């Protein structure tokens, strides 16, 4: 199959305007996403994964500024390339992209639906905004979508209000809304974190089915490596605003290279071999605060392989150590 690049992020830097100073939140992130693929973005809280995702739609809060970098988006049918960082954040062009070419699923689906309108109306509204069809057709399409995402009795559910839905149902409706305009890219920000484990499994299955059916590219953001492992073709691991390792999912799980990735995999309780009941291997310390960013490699104060004079100097470059597998660590220099 021919590789078609859909999205290319180059040296993206985002800073937080605090007390008249710019505090870096995202510190030079690069990645590519091929069309039809799923990229998993993994990291602990405040590592910049959600901020990165929001910047792709220019939905950042006003204290957050993109200070550098490019977000290139290929519009395949038109053949145009758009640099999203150059667009007006309230302009017409970005509105065309939001919801149309790129759509988003959030962690808490309650807050992404207005409580004042029915679920059906809100999905229909998106369809009407981005395509030239009649209201009647849009309604039929909405019901069809609700059916597809597994909402029972879609015709009646069309008239339900968000509070009448359970968390899992709302997340299904959210997915229906997100795929209603056949987006080229779907950004899912912790879509299952608020859900119970059985519902999480249902939603993941649904997302996988939808992805196979529509061939949508997905950026899947989560703190849970296990969940991302199920969904993603490729995983990028972020730590303090930087991608520190990136590669195909199986490769990351079988052959992790960055000390942080290794530790992260080791810190998850695994069910494979309970009798052994070994101790978990935690990562010592905790993520430094925004104002205590270490010099050089940001992981150096928690790393078991710290090399004085090397790791404290500057942040290591992402290097390709095997095909498509990148690591930012001086051990692989």
């Amino acid at each position, binding site marked *: 199959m021919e590789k078609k690049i859909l999205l290319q992020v180059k040296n993206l830097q985002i800073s937080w305007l605090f*007390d008249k100073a710019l505090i870096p939140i995202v510190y030079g992130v690069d990645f590519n996403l091929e069309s039809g693929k799923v990229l998993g973005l993994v990291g602990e809280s405040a590592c910049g994964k959600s901020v990165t995702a929001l910047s792709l739609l220019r939905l950042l809060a006003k204290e957050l500024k993109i200070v550098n970098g490019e977000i290139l988006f290929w519009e395949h049918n038109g053949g145009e390339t758009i640099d999203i960082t150059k667009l007006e954040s309230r302009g017409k062009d970005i509105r065309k992209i939001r919801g149309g070419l790129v759509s988003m699923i959030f962690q808490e689906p309650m807050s992404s639906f207005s409580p004042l309108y029915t679920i059906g109306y809100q999905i229909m509204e998106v369809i009407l905004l981005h395509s030239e069809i009649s209201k009647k057709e849009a309604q039929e399409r909405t019901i069809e979508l609700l059916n597809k995402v597994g909402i029972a009795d879609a015709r009646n559910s069309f008239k339900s209000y968000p509070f009448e839905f359970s968390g899992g149902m709302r997340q299904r409706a959210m997915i229906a809304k997100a795929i209603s305009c056949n987006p080229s890219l779907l950004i899912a920000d912790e879509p299952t974190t608020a859900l119970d484990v059985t519902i999480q499994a249902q939603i993941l299955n649904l997302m996988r089915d939808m992805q196979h059916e529509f061939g949508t590219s997905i950026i899947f953001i989560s703190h849970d490596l296990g969940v991302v492992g199920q969904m993603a073709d490729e995983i990028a691991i972020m730590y303090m605003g930087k991608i520190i390792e990136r590669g195909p999912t199986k490769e990351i799980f079988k052959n992790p290279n960055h000390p942080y990735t290794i530790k992260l995999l080791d810190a998850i309780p695994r069910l494979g071999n309970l009798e052994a009941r070994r101790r978990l291997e935690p990562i010592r310390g905790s993520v430094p*605060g925004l*104002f*205590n960013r270490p010099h050089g490699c940001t992981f150096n104060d928690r790393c078991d392989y710290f090399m004085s004079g090397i790791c404290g100097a500057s942040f290591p470059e992402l290097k390709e150590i095997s095909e498509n597998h990148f690591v930012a660590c001086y051990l692989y220099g």
Partner: protein
Amino acid sequence: MAKEGHIKVDGKKVQRIDIATHRQLMWWKFRKNYMAMIAAGILGIFLIISIFAEFIAPYSSGLRNTRYLAGPPMSVHLFDAKGKFHLRPFIYGWVNKRDPVTLALIPVVDTSKQIPLSIFHRGESYKLWGLFKSNLHLFGVNEGMVNIFGTDQIGRDIFSRIMYATRISLSVGAIGVFFVFIIGLLMGGIAGYFGGIADELIMRLMEFLRSIPTLPLWLALAAALPRDWSALKVYVAILLILSSVGWTNLGRRVRSKLLSIREDDFVLSARLAGCSDARIIFHHMLPSFMSYIIVDLTVSFPYIILAETALSFLGLGLREPIVSWGVLLYSAQNIHALAEIPWLLITGLFVVIAVLAFNFMGDGLRDAADPLAK
């Protein structure tokens, strides 16, 4: 936040914010809000005025300048009519002249006569807070009288009267808020902590009080005060009337806060630690929302001041010889007085500034009450 720097504790470097108490955090946040800081400054000046009213006012509130009735504000000058600079500020003298048409006596400025102002002037004697005898005033003149805000119909100095009125009006606010605080905390606390029948009764009482239109209620209560009561008795009675209605807001707030945090983790955790009911209420629950109550009280301050002003303006509140802002405005009621003596309205300016300052400070406190929020 990290910019607050480091200090030394037990020989070790410690981030100041790490050992900062909640109150310190609130202050750091509050002082970043310029409007609130300005408002606090203005209220500080008002506080000084009301504490040292006798000293700041050149005359007592009843002293009449019989030769200067309904006289306009005297402006204080540094340059005389010839443009010559004088280090000592001075006022011009005046002469009473008859209007050729109405034949009424009108004071007219006489630029030939300069009366210098003296600072820390020894003038009328008074007893500060009714205790310390003194005759020292912030400023005054040796010849005649100085009325920088003018005089009223019978020649009393408006500036001096406003200084005394500031003391009375702010004290009405402060004591009223204190009563509101006590009643509100008690009633809300009983309703919220014990619940059950007490809660039902108190809630119904609050609803009843809130359903009565306040102004007619105050009017009725104030009108029921015997006319032969002394001014001081009336003052206390008015305070009680105002706070008897004003506590419902605070009571409601205290009750709902108590109800909502009764099941909070930190309260459960305090119960598990074996704390007594009193310790849970006073050590854990009350402090957790005390800052919000202080905000509420700050905002209710101007309401009480305005209520007193309204009552007195209608002639049902405080009475001479006690002067409050409302009493002063009472004399500016008729159109004649307004047209002839517009400087009577300077009092209104004080009311507006005080109310605005309280509201701005309340806003600042509200933001600071949650100092760790972004």
